[in-house]
């Protein structure tokens, strides 16, 4: 079960890799907007990951992972033929878009804003719309040219705009600059979906609120079980406690308390960072850098 059938390294620094994994139950039932949880091995953490694509007939799902800590580093070392200990899902609610009336959707101009590894979960939504006769606009933002991922996949399903912070590819500047520029050029959207780092989603929401575009974000907080049991993924939406795993992961971006959500991400940072260093540096790391 959960064998890795394909693996591609998309970027080098940071490392982002793409894998096609055998997971028939997930592939049979997942919908755009949902996520899954993966454990690399029997001792591994439960890591929530986004679903980039799926093939119901082959029973496979495609994941895109950025190495950010010990667990994702461990995953990056797995190769074709290896298996994950666990792949469970799909988790969370599907995107509201797929519940809407197709004829209504066709009348709307839809914008996706994707940042970094958050580009991956945008793909199944854009593809789903494209398959149903709606071609959305997609803005992919990255630090520089080397970090733009999945460009070819996207090209065939949307009107693609790429922007890089340093201007090394596509437009120049953050995604918010691209939204504002396109708006100034006369483009109007009825609906926006933003997926990426929390800080990006926060500023996209700030802008779209000013522009009056309803905006949905996909939250990726700390999670343990992913089925509504632990409460670790709670966040405040419109002053109410919500659980990202069962109430989300998508929420009305104009109602999410991003500052609090970002603060909560600090919770295990030091713990995880320490562990990553220990694994990377082995015995050479004594945890008291420079003071020994």
């Amino acid at each position, binding site marked *: 079960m959960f064998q890795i059938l394909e693996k591609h390294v998309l970027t080098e620094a940071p490392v982002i890799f793409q894998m096609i994994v055998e997971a028939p*139950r*997930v592939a*049979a*039932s997942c919908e755009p907007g*949902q996520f899954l949880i993966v*454990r690399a091995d029997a*001792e*591994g*953490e*439960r890591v929530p990951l986004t679903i980039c694509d799926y093939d119901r007939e082959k029973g496979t799902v495609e994941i895109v992972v950025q190495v950010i800590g*010990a*667990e994702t580093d461990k995953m990056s070392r797995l190769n074709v033929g290896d298996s994950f*200990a*666990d*792949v*469970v*899902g*799909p*988790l969370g609610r599907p995107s509201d878009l797929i519940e809407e009336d197709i004829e209504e959707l066709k009348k709307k101009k839809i914008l996706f804003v994707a940042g970094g590894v958050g580009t991956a979960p945008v793909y199944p939504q854009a593809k789903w719309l494209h398959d149903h006769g709606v071609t959305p606009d997609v803005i992919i933002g990255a630090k520089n040219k080397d970090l733009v991922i999945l460009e070819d996949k996207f090209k065939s399903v949307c009107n693609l705009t790429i922007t890089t912070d340093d201007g090394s590819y596509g437009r120049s500047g953050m995604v918010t600059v691209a939204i504002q520029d396109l708006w100034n050029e006369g483009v109007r959207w009825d609906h926006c979906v933003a997926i990426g780092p929390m800080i990006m989603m926060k500023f996209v929401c700030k802008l779209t609120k000013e522009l009056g575009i309803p905006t949905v974000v996909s939250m990726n907080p700390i999670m*343990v*079980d992913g*089925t*509504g*049991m*632990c*409460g*670790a993924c*709670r*966040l*405040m939406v419109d002053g109410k*406690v919500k*659980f990202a795993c*069962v109430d989300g992961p998508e929420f009305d971006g104009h109602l999410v308390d991003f500052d*609090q959500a970002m*603060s*909560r991400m*600090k*919770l*295990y940072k030091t*713990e*995880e960072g320490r*562990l990553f260093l220990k694994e990377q540096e082995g015995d050479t790391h004594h945890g008291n850098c420079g003071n020994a």
Partner: protein
Amino acid sequence: MEVDVMKKIPVREQDPKVRATNFEEVCLGYNKEEAEAEASRCLNCKNPRCVEGCPVSIQIPQFIQAVKDGDVAEAYRVIGESSSLPAICGRVCPQETQCEGKCVRGIKGEAVAIGKLERYVADTAREMGIHPTPPKEKNGKRVAVIGSGPAGLTCAGDLAKMGYDVTIFEALHEAGGVLTYGIPEFRLPKERVVQKEIDNVKALGVKIETDVVVGKSVKIDELMKKEGFSAVFVGSGAGLPKFMNIPGEQALGVFSANEFLTRSNLMKAFSPDSSTPIMRPKKAVIVGGGNVAMDAARTALRMGAEVHVVYRRSEAELPARVEEVHHAKEEGVIFDLLTNPIEILSNEEGWVSGIRCIRMELGEPDESGRRSPVAVEGSEFEIECDAVIMSLGTSPNPLIASTTEGLDVNRRGCIVADEANGKSSKDGVYAGGDAVTGAATVILAMGAGKAGAKGIDEYINA
């Protein structure tokens, strides 16, 4: 061995000072001599009230007689007729309000230690390599059980004994439900006890498929229509943790007991070898007074914290088992009773720095029959701490009900099911355990699993 018929043979336990620093099991259990001496206190009543007090109706005097006779295999067989998880029940059942609460010995002296004897039988049988035997004949009918906690394991075990082909679907990566993620190692050892009990259920022919979230990975209707299951038992357990909705609850260092315990138990953060991140607080406040609160308190204590349990009523109303409260106190957990949190305080970086509470006094009895606590005006005070663990119970997980057409839930979101046979509003679907009752005990869930198995058998044979 000398026996005072009025008193229980004391059970050996780890010294409180020692066990407060480790995760080894607190209670060491009876040896053969102690067990046989304790068994000799049983009056073998003609009309055994203890059996009435047992939610799964174990033939208690009969198994105790076998212990007296030194025949552990027979004792295990007798218990096995009614329970699939004796090593677990012997440890975590609230015997004092069930079998032992009804024991005639208890009128003048102390009740027979039925729970400790059950544990002795299960542990000894395991050491002797005795396993339950699978049925000789299979009936070819398939039943799906959702959740591998006490309700699911019991239901699956009973159905397998009747000859059904049973598959359990478990959402997590390990089987056991609350036995695995919730109850800590020092109360219920995982490898030595829980895993062995699960292996025994598997030995009956039950299959367990982990990583399947029913309602998401597959729906109940698909299990019945596409995968060939004739009936489904829902034992999906309790759900979303409750919070108090007081200011400051989003601060860093506020956890649900479920999260704290899941990290420690399921993800093994209690072990120094584990890579699971967990906060090891210096001073932790646990809010709540149930068994889960005691588990969280004693786990935090073992990680090195000073631990305060804050509970709004008095000691008499603590919902936790007396034995758990007693153990917690022995180990050094501090109880701040008649105290209710009103705000969680945090420092500039957003980490918990304390909890603001108000003193309470008991007023008139409320609908639960317990005297309801009333705030004492002007009595606010602060407890300095770096972690707050909320243990206020759970509300049902909507995953299954919201994805299963025709499955009714009540006002509180619990699945509606007949207590006698687990029958739900949907044809062929049965339910029991916390998913039906809201947070309760392991043994009540087992009782419901048993009733569900009976209900499903009647349904399929109707």
